């Protein structure tokens, strides 16, 4: 064995020289942990100190803040109206303004919070790496693009335009616009490839680079990007849209600078951040000290069913709040459902502002005072090489993670800033599509139905049906007529509320609606879906309310619905998923019920694909539901009569829907007695029920009884490892098709052996 060389002690001067050499000769400017792991606002810069030194008139700050808001809103509307991506049309976009050192100060009032809450990462990257780089530089009129979430972002389907704003030769702030563009050249169309087994399957991965000079797009680079995606026209159009949205924003901010001066703008942005952070700390101080916890279980990797745990403990002590995610599932090396921690935090920021304190200013400062702890290499803190194209899965969980533990803190407060709400449905329940359109264009994208998640029930009312996505108040679920003009997708039937698919409770969750789609007039078309919750429900109830049910993807393959309808216009009485599947009115079709996670597959003309948007969680004990609300649900055909009795124990006249109040009270009292009779004291129950390890039949990932020990268990390949939480390794999953082939080969071998045995016996 060779002797190890002795470490050479360097003089101070030599050490400096070495440090400079290494800094000047970095081989790859990858995602920078110093930037990516810091979600807090930075200390005041010299410019900010100067701006605030003299003190600002709060009335004028308020005035300027209003002007900035109006400017952000105007730019948002421009992008919303002109954007070509379906995401842009239905509100999946944002415009934002950042301080000169890259802190997100304000976003458009109707914008997607998470987009902007990610965008400060690439801006800080540009500041750190490109300003002083003589081959790049940052000058007036420059614009930078980026999409790789590893440098900050929700996922790689979103593209940002970031522009420095110079005033009298000085960099004063940054502006941005981001759209969920959809197509990005990944291994599956539409930009969110569940089939991505490595980051190199995710399509184009733009680190932040300059794509605009002198306020003009550089056509050579635009062409390169167009050449890398399935929808080159979309790529060009939306780059222009974002650029001009940001340029309009720039004009408005310069007008503010002309009128009020640099110090007022810089001071307003900074004080907005500091005031928000101070208000956050004040609200945390109002909460009780202690810890509340929630577990979330994701049941699919979108390639196979696998139970992945997200563990969260929120601890409050004085004005400190700590979110501890340790105990969460390990990252998958070849599945796309990982996220990096920066993206995950952006989703947390969104969830706090959407579900808990919507009245707070939409800025990164809301998250700034919160300490976040995670296990490195867990599914929510994955390293850069891991695929994360479907990072939406854990990120949507982050959006709703707050609802249960925060309500367990906040219910007690004498003053509440917003209503108590159970978890919203948290899946991307929409069709992602791709192929050749009826106009001969190649495309890939997703439908606006993603924005129709049912609201969680509230402490004072039922949830609203299909209210918005978990990541934005303001998004609309789209107009299918426009979609049908652009793509071969035809919707069969109306958007019927998904009857009986309810998060039951004293107040029920808002419900989702059915989506029944087929394709027509395309030479090649296909769909994918990316949802969990087919085995383990996703939206959790609150204070005794039940979760939403499980949801499935239903298909009728091997038919052409248009031919069938031509032959017999009445062959389908009503396009209702449950009836279609149970009655099977179209003979010869292959009817199947499947997991909601489906990688891209071709849809022949007239084949039928069906999914639902889901319901929010319920609130409170079902036996406390006002019987008249139960009758209302029956009148609105949201629920079957069986549930009125089985779940709510209401006695009534089925014809007239008149409640027998006395009989209902008696029935409910009897059910309460039955509950006591059939249940056990907690300690007795736990002693019998709890197992020392996850059941052997379950593919299970995450902690069980101790957050320091993480299981990775996959019975399909006899894998079972237990890792220390601070030493997590990624898990490699087998190809489901290989497993299927192996199972079929084993079946064939067994039958062959049987045949041989029969022959030998003859």
């Amino acid at each position, binding site marked *: 064995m060779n002797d190890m060389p002795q470490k050479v002690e360097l003089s101070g001067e030599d050490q400096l020289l070495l440090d400079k050499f290494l800094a000047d000769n970095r081989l790859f400017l990858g995602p920078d942990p110093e930037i990516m792991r810091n979600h807090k606002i930075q200390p005041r810069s010299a410019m900010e100190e100067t701006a605030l030194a003299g003190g600002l008139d709060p009335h004028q700050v308020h005035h300027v803040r209003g002007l900035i808001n109006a400017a952000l809103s105007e730019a948002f509307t421009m992008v919303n109206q002109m954007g070509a991506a379906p995401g842009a049309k239905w509100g999946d976009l944002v415009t934002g303004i950042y301080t000169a050192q890259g802190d997100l100060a304000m976003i458009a009032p109707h914008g997607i919070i998470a987009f902007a809450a990610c965008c400060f990462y690439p801006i800080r990257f540009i500041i750190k790496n490109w300003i002083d780089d003589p081959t790049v530089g940052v000058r007036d009129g420059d614009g930078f693009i980026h999409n790789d979430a590893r440098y900050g972002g929700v996922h790689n389907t979103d593209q940002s335009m970031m522009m420095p704003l110079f005033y009298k030769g000085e960099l004063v702030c940054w502006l941005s616009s981001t759209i969920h563009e959809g197509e990005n050249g990944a291994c599956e169309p539409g930009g969110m490839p569940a089939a991505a087994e490595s980051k190199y399957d995710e399509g184009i991965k733009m680190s932040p680079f300059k794509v605009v000079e002198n306020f003009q797009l550089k056509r050579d680079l635009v062409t390169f990007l167009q050449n890398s995606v399935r929808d080159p026209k979309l790529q060009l159009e939306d780059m222009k849209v974002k650029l001009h949205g940001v340029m309009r924003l720039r004009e408005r901010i310069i007008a503010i600078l002309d009128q009020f001066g640099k110090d007022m703008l810089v001071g307003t942005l900074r004080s907005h951040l500091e005031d928000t952070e101070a208000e956050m700390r004040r609200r945390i101080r109002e909460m*009780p000290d*202690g810890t*509340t916890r929630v577990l979330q279980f994701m049941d699919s990797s979108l390639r196979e069913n696998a139970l992945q745990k997200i563990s969260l403990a929120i601890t409050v002590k004085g004005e400190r709040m700590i979110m501890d995610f340790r105990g969460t599932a390990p990252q998958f090396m070849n599945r796309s459902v990982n996220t990096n921690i920066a993206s995950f935090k952006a989703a947390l920021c969104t969830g706090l502002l959407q579900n808990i304190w919507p009245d707070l200013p939409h800025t990164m400062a809301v998250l700034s005072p919160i300490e976040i702890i995670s296990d490195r290499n867990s599914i929510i803190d994955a390293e850069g090489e891991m695929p994360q194209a479907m990072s939406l899965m854990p990120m949507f969980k982050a959006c709703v993670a707050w609802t249960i533990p925060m309500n367990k803190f906040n219910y007690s407060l004498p003053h509440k*800033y917003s209503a108590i709400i159970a978890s919203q449905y948290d899946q991307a329940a929409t069709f992602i599509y791709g192929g050749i359109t009826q106009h001969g264009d190649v495309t890939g994208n997703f439908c606006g139905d993603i924005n129709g998640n049912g609201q969680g029930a509230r402490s004072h009312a039922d949830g609203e049906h299909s209210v918005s996505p978990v990541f934005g108040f303001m998004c609309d679920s789209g107009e299918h007529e426009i979609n049908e003009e652009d793509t071969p997708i035809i919707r069969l039937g109306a958007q019927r509320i998904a009857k009986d*698919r309810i998060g039951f409770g004293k107040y029920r969750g808002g419900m989702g609606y059915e989506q029944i789609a087929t394709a027509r007039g395309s030479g090649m078309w296909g769909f994918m879906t990316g949802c969990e919750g087919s085995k383990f429900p996703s939206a959790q109830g609150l204070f005794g309310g039940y*979760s939403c049910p499980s949801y499935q993807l239903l298909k009728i393959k091997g038919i052409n619905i248009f031919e069938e309808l031509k032959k017999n216009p009445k062959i389908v009485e009503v396009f209702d998923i449950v009836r279609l599947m149970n009655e099977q009115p179209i003979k010869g079709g292959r009817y199947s019920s499947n997991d909601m996670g489906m990688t891209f597959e071709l849809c022949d003309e007239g084949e039928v694909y069906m999914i639902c948007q889901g319901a929010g969680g319920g609130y409170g004990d079902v036996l406390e539901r006002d019987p008249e609300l139960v009758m209302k649900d029956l009148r609105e055909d949201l629920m079957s009569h069986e549930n009125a009795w089985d779940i709510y124990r209401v006695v009534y006249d089925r014809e007239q829907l008149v409640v027998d109040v006395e009989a209902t009270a008696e029935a409910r009292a009897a*059910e309460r007695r039955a509950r006591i009779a059939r*249940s056990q004291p907690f300690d007795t129950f736990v002693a019998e029920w709890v197992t020392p390890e996850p059941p052997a039949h379950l593919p299970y990932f995450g902690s069980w009884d101790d957050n320091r020990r993480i299981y990775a268990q996959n019975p399909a390949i006899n894998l079972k490892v237990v890792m220390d939480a601070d030493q997590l390794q990624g898990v490699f999953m087998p190809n489901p098709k290989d497993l299927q082939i192996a199972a079929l080969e084993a079946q064939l071998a067994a039958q062959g052996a049987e045949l041989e045995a029969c022959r030998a016996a003859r």
Partner: protein
Amino acid sequence: MKVLITEYLRINLDTENWECRRCDHVLNSARENYKRGLRVYDRDPREIHKPLLDPQRYARTYSPDPQWCRILEYYCPNCGTMFEAEYLPPGHPPLHDIELDIDALKAQWQGREEVTEPVTGPDLALEKVLLGRKLHAEHEHGHHGHRG
């Protein structure tokens, strides 16, 4: 002084006990897990989220898979009110979901009036949605993009 903690739970700061808000039953010490004062039932999720598709034809019916998911229902031992419906994989330890610092809680409430009925906050999330829809309705959403 009593502090409301959930729809069904409150803490009596004087006796330091968890109590049922429906029947005033004293559950257990507020310094312990309140679940220890309740009764539990392991519910097959198919009884609540009933199969909507014919189980003879389809394995996936909109019901959760009982091999993957159970519902632990927690009831008041006195009045039978359901406090929590906890969805867990079979055999998973129930979560200690509320663990408050009782001494800090006492100190915090010294300066507060007792709240006997829960305060309902403004429904800001819904207000924002409705505002967004109103704004959206005001805009013409014509056909743009994807034209050949």
